[in-house]
């Protein structure tokens, strides 16, 4: 308690001065007590999407680097579990794409588990063609939509 007193005094005096200053010219505004420092915003460097070829759920060579980054992030952020969403482009039929999306999510999960991430921290789900990232009807848009999307929870 003794150590708290100078601290409290040092807070109290400027506060009262401030209140007094405010009171001179306008309505008294009681400042709210200083909020507790907010939890550091969840910065998610590293968690990125990986992309797939048309009608394929096997990982491409260019997915490996991103999956390693994702695995490192998951290892470092033990407070967060991760859902891997499988997505497809709009072509073909929606039921088949729902199945294909799940296989994409599973192939990404299996790779990360092989890198040492506990399976219990990973969930997979498919959205098929229902939630495209890019809205165009070109190969460029489709390529961005054939993806496994990592979401921290």
């Amino acid at each position, binding site marked *: 308690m003794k150590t708290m007193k100078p601290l409290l005094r040092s807070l109290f005096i400027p506060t009262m001065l401030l209140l007094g200053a405010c009171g001179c010219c306008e309505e008294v505004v009681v400042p709210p007590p200083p909020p507790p420092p907010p939890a550091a915003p969840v910065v998610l460097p590293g968690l990125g999407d990986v992309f797939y070829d048309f009608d394929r759920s096997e990982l491409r060579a260019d997915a490996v680097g991103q999956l390693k980054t994702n695995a490192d992030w998951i290892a470092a952020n033990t407070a967060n579990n991760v859902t891997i969403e499988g997505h497809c482009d709009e072509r073909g039929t929606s039921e088949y794409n729902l199945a294909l999306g799940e296989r994409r999510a599973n192939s990404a999960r299996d790779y990360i588990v092989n890198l040492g991430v506990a399976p219990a921290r990973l969930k*997979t*789900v*498919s959205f098929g063609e229902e939630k495209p990232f890019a809205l165009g009807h070109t190969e460029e848009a489709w390529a961005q939509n054939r993806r496994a999307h990592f979401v921290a929870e």
Partner: protein
Amino acid sequence: MIQFFRGFVSGIFAMLFCLVFSPLYLSAAEGQEYIAIRKEGTGNIALVLDKLDAKGRKETRFAEILDATMHDGLDFTRLFSLISPPLNVKDNTDRKNVVINFPALTSVGAEVYAGGVVTMKSDMIILDMKVYEAAGSKLLLNKTYTGTEADLRSVGHAFCADLVELLTGKKSVFGSKIVFISNKTGFKEIYECDFDGYGVEQLTNSKSISMNPTLSPDGKNLAYIDFTSGRPTLYIRSLNGGRIAAVGKSSVSIDPGWRNNNEVAATLSFDGNQEIYLVNSDGTLSRRVTNGKSIDISPTFSPDGSKMAFVSSRNGLPQIFIQDLASGQVKRLTFSGRYNTQPSWSPAGDKIVYTTWEKGGEINIFTINADGSGLVQLTQRSGENKSPSWSPDGEMIVFSSNRLGKEKLYVMNLKGGNERLLLQVDGEQTQPSWSLFR
């Protein structure tokens, strides 16, 4: 009473009501005889549907509504050539004894004549219908249909159903329902409408994503996929009690198809692989049907439930296969087309309709015999045509198409002819499924 008649069972109930409480003089033997006389594939039945007789202001108004209902209903089936009645079709000089002028009917090419009278008894509307064969002036049907003003559409369609069954020997579309997906509200929700697009009603309001609705053959249960839980989950909803069973063991559920009134099949992946399972209508698992590492989806069953057609990627790109449920034997059905999905087994059991995604980007609808012969292309040069589903009489197919931009529902006959828009509502409509009432 009016409340009772409304809703899903109204059509069926009205028909039962008429059957139970009305004098019935349907001569099955004569109907069979008539069917036998008509040669297979001789085209539409030339029908004179005469203006209904009615006395009194109310009666006349109801008669006009019934005239339009029956005309539009019979026209929708495309089974008839509707001929305007000749002016002298009835000799009304003797009011009590209306005489039909059969020579006048045959002279305009009519094969069948249907006419009737509308009367009222307290609040009940009574429709007395008579159907004659024009050439032989033989009475084929004499039947009374009864209902309140709220049931007029059901009353008119009950007669249409009898007429079609009498003349074709097959059950008709009247009273059947179509369930489908619409994004009108901004979310993909499930809706239903009558066979002709009339009476659209919203069935789900999950504000999530709903997919692949399908009614059990008896129309009592609706199976569908919904993302409310965060993942695609199979739901089985009782339409009478509103009880909803979620098949929650799975991580992902895909595209249900009913085997019979008590069992629905769907792809579930809770054991790691995407396999087709049979699920009881209370949501409990019955048994696993497929066993493999590939994608196996979209089960559809032969009418006796002994065989299942489904989509599998076991050979690479998706093709349609047929599995015998007792022996487990599987044979490939489709060899033409690189990407064949969305099979639906016909109510008669002879054909399977499905879609092919073509190289140029079109998706087209085909039918094939269940033995793999007789491939027929039903759509062409009209964008993406998807999710074909048979009418309960097997005479029509409902499907979605983006031929005019937005995805809308269309119906067509088995040769791909008579394509027309089913309903005009906002947004995009997809994944139609026609009820069976087997």
